[in-house]
């Protein structure tokens, strides 16, 4: 059976950073990525990141992949990249099963595993929500920014969080008209700087509005929205109809947690982390020994913190298998303070209280 020191499932921001710190600790690392190239969702983020310099603020997501891959190149002798391969099973005894190119099936026995599988886009319930032309906002971003294809002519964006606002802006950059952004919440969820940017471009934002129904025979032709009251109940006779061929759903993400569940990690539903997430110790190890997790797969946050969590999980996983980084303490301290900085705002308080619900302490274990 194939072996390695540390297998990392997912080659996005968390996985790549985990690989860098595990390899720099001296561990042999295998990064397993289902796509045919690394970078995950960074590869479609054409906007500049926030955060601080250490998380590549003011750098576009699309350029961060290259920076991380260059870093990984330094450890070429011990990092193996396995692209176009799905991890289809993760077992309690740390055996993982892989499917390469949907055809070659094999097993791997690493000493430790870091699950950094990321997230998937949530869906929204309304009538005819299955019509082609109704896409996840991230899907539209992929279509435009990776493949250079416009999703359609006129778009209704559902959700005024950061993703909804940023993708609206990117749609306009691609030459696609965004007719409106709506959100069921009474106020805009995303950063004001993004909201101001789209408003300046003339896109109206309707808060306290949700989708009533989609209309179309085989593809989306019209979208009907209506107003909701303080309890999110629709108010009759407040309907507005838009002629749109695309609706983008941007109502949040959920952790991609199947492998962690499958391995038998104890899980808990934590609304602040947007779904079922594994209990974990402060070293990012789950309740199953030597299975670690980092990034959105253990709680929805954003790419900057996913990267820092990845660095931490990589350091800890390597330490667990006896490859302690020479400046382990210093680095852990540095990354921990970076995370605290990232989580110092109001959104961060939610994240911290979510993590508080799932963090186990060794003393009580």
């Amino acid at each position, binding site marked *: 059976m194939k072996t390695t020191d540390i297998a990392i499932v997912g080659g996005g921001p968390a996985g790549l950073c985990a690989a860098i710190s595990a390899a720099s600790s001296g561990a042999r690392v295998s990064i397993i990525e*289902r*796509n*045919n190239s690394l970078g995950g969702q960074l590869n479609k983020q054409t906007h500049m990141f926030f955060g601080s310099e250490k998380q590549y603020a003011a750098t576009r997501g699309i350029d961060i992949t290259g920076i991380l891959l260059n870093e990984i190149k330094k450890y070429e002798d011990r990092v193996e990249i396995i692209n176009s391969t799905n991890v289809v099973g993760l077992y309690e005894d740390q055996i993982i099963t892989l499917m390469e190119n949907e055809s070659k099936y094999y097993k791997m026995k690493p000493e430790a595993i870091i699950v950094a599988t990321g997230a998937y886009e949530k869906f929204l319930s309304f009538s005819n929500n299955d019509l082609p*032309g109704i*896409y996840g906002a991230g*899907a539209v971003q992929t279509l435009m920014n990776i493949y250079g*294809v*416009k999703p359609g002519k006129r778009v209704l964006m559902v959700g005024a969080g950061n993703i909804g606002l940023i993708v609206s802006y990117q749609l306009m950059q*691609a030459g696609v008209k965004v007719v409106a952004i709506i959100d069921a919440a009474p106020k805009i969820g995303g950063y004001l700087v993004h909201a101001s940017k789209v408003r300046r471009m003339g896109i109206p934002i309707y808060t306290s509005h949700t989708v009533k129904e989609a209309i179309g025979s085989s593809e989306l032709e019209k979208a009907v929205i209506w107003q909701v009251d303080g309890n999110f109940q629709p108010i009759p006779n407040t309907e507005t109809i838009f002629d749109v061929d695309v609706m983008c759903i941007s109502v949040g993400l959920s952790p991609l947690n199947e492998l962690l569940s499958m391995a038998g990690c104890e899980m808990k539903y934590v609304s602040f982390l947007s779904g079922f997430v594994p209990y974990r110790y402060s070293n990012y190890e789950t309740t199953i020994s030597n299975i670690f997790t980092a990034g959105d797969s253990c709680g929805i946050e954003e790419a900057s913190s996913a990267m820092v969590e990845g660095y931490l999980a990589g350091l800890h996983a390597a330490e667990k298998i006896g490859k302690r980084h020479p400046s382990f303490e210093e680095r852990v301290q540095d990354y921990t303070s970076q995370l605290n900085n990232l989580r110092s705002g109001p959104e961060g308080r939610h994240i911290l209280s979510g993590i508080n619900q799932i963090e186990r302490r060794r003393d009580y274990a």
Partner: protein
Amino acid sequence: MRIENHPILDFGNRKTIRFYFEGKEIEGLEGDTIASALHANGVKVLGESLFKHRPRGFYCAIGNCSSCLMKVNGKSNVKTCVTMLEEGDKVEIQKDKGGLE
């Protein structure tokens, strides 16, 4: 429906790839997935739901949701949103569960 001008991205000169959709020859570009090439040709309906036969398009475009399954070169249930387009591919709308190869 390709993006012509973009303030940040440059998609460069991509080679044309010819393929077949429902028996008709159409064109995609190098670097396309099957779903992105179809979308560029205005094709949004990729399949039908199993029981009510409602039209299906992709939803997530990154291989999670399985809403983009099609028949490709005789093989059923291909995730077309993450499968790269190849010259001469025969792509068909899938209306049933499909079978094993």
